């Protein structure tokens, strides 16, 4: 087993000192694809914010055995995103270099090459000069994946990255996630698509009812756990049983 880069034990998460989730425990190694699954308001985004460092934990702390990586790539939900701002797709991708460039650093040839590679890999090179307001939801999400790629981080956090995109885009972006994991990057994904979790993730944290379960996706996201942690009702859990009957198709 590879050495952990991030772990937690007995961590309590919440806002303003009010606990929302207690006793959070998990461990991540390089190359892990870590899914966070839970009902709305269960504390998934609270966990993401705590890992990003924008929200303090109520009690306990995160352990970074190899030091906190800098930068941590982050792609949040687009509720506050302003797509009327007058910039182009390539500028949006270039924003990923900001934490390294700072206030006045120059975008040099190497950086330009990385931006171009990210645009090509995400399929946005052809729309690189298009203003953001002309993009479809899928195109915007692929441009944001390009930005994430330009961040070139060892730890990548994606909060519901497929919330607004169609199946084709989701498949293309999932293959990109597999590729990043193959490069030894660690990914933390908030996902609602359980099929994607089973096929692409190496570990999962189920959050709900103020509690958590951590482990391999198939052992964690069991129908019994999903019902116990209020992710779905018993009747909804029935089709999960059918899904588990199918063989695993992807990497793991």
């Amino acid at each position: 087993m590879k050495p952990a880069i991030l772990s937690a034990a007995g961590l309590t998460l919440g806002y303003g000192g009010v606990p929302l989730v207690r006793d959070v425990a998990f461990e991540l190694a390089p190359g892990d694809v870590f899914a966070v699954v839970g009902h709305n308001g269960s504390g998934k985004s609270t966990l993401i914010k705590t890992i990003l460092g924008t929200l303090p934990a109520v009690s306990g702390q995160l352990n970074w055995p190899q030091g906190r990586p800098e930068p941590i790539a982050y792609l949040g939900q687009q509720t506050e995103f302003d797509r009327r701002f007058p910039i182009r797709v390539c500028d949006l991708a270039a924003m990923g270099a900001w934490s390294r460039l700072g206030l006045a650093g120059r975008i040099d040839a190497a950086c330009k090459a990385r931006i171009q590679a990210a645009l090509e890999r995400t399929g946005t090179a052809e729309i690189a000069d298009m203003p953001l307001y002309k993009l479809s939801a899928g195109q915007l999400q692929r441009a944001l994946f390009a930005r994430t790629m330009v961040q070139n981080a060892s730890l990548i956090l994606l909060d519901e990255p497929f919330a607004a995109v169609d199946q084709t885009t989701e498949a293309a972006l999932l293959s990109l996630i597999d590729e990043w994991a193959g490069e030894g990057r660690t990914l933390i994904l908030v996902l609602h698509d359980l099929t994607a979790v089973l096929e692409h993730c190496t570990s999962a944290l189920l959050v709900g009812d103020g509690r958590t379960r951590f482990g391999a996706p198939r052992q964690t996201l069991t129908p019994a756990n999903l019902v116990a942690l209020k992710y779905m009702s018993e009747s909804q859990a029935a089709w999960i049983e059918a899904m588990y009957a199918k063989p695993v198709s992807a990497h793991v």
Partner: protein
Amino acid sequence: MPSRYLPMFEWLDYDFMVRALAATLVLSFSVAPVGAFLVLRRLSLAGEAMAHAIVPGIVIGFVVAGLSVGSMIVGGLSAGILVAVLTSLLARMTIIREDASLASLYLIALALGIFILSAAGSAVPLKSFLFGSILGIDDETLILIGATATITLVSFAVLLRPLIINTIDPVFYESQSKYPGLVTQWFMLLVVLNLLGAFKALGTLMAVGLMILPATAARYWVSTITSYLLLTFVFALASCWVGLIVSFYLPEVPSGPAIVLVAGVIFFISLVFAHQGFHVGARLKPSRRKTASDERENAKKGENAYEKTV
């Protein structure tokens, strides 16, 4: 007095006009980026409210410490900070949202300012205080405008990247920034500073017009941030100079409304003719600025991209 210039340039004979033209040139450099980001950050109305909210601060400064740029800055800045803090406090601690608390506060502040100004029988004529006067631009005001422009342009040189990222994607910005609140607060300070700089030429009621109107008009024409900032500057400068000349020929008209009206004409011309105004507006749904042909073109590009990616 015979003019040294052609008849239509006779206003160049007058020192106060040359002064006003120079002052507004520098002022345009300064208010253009501030106005552009007020519009981009959807703070146009907050800027308007702020302009009125700092009036009592200035008036109290004038009454207590006399008519000087120093008393105007101290009074204006303290009132601006007080109103900003009160607004966010009210929004956080009561059920009333930020816009309503800001509107309430600025109406009270404006009334209070005019009340004190009239009651104290100040030496400032109310009309030029509210609407500006090209005669009011003295050496002190020139220095204030120059200092404001210097501070603003240096700030933008340093803060442009974080400000852009913070405006487009505040959640991403917060995740990547060590001092997330700093940029927003510094920007609001620049807004107040530029309002103070614009007060003499445009008056307290009209100052914010020079920020918002050129920036809104320019937004109809451009799709990149650099061209947007440049065009906002050009529109602001044109409004000032044409407005001042109008005000020169019609001495009864204060300079503020003349400048803002010219900006208004530019705004309506842009609205009607620009490709992001009514030019395409008729073919767009108001909620999604996208045409059917864009949609098809995008879909085609998207498909090609998938073939390459997958």
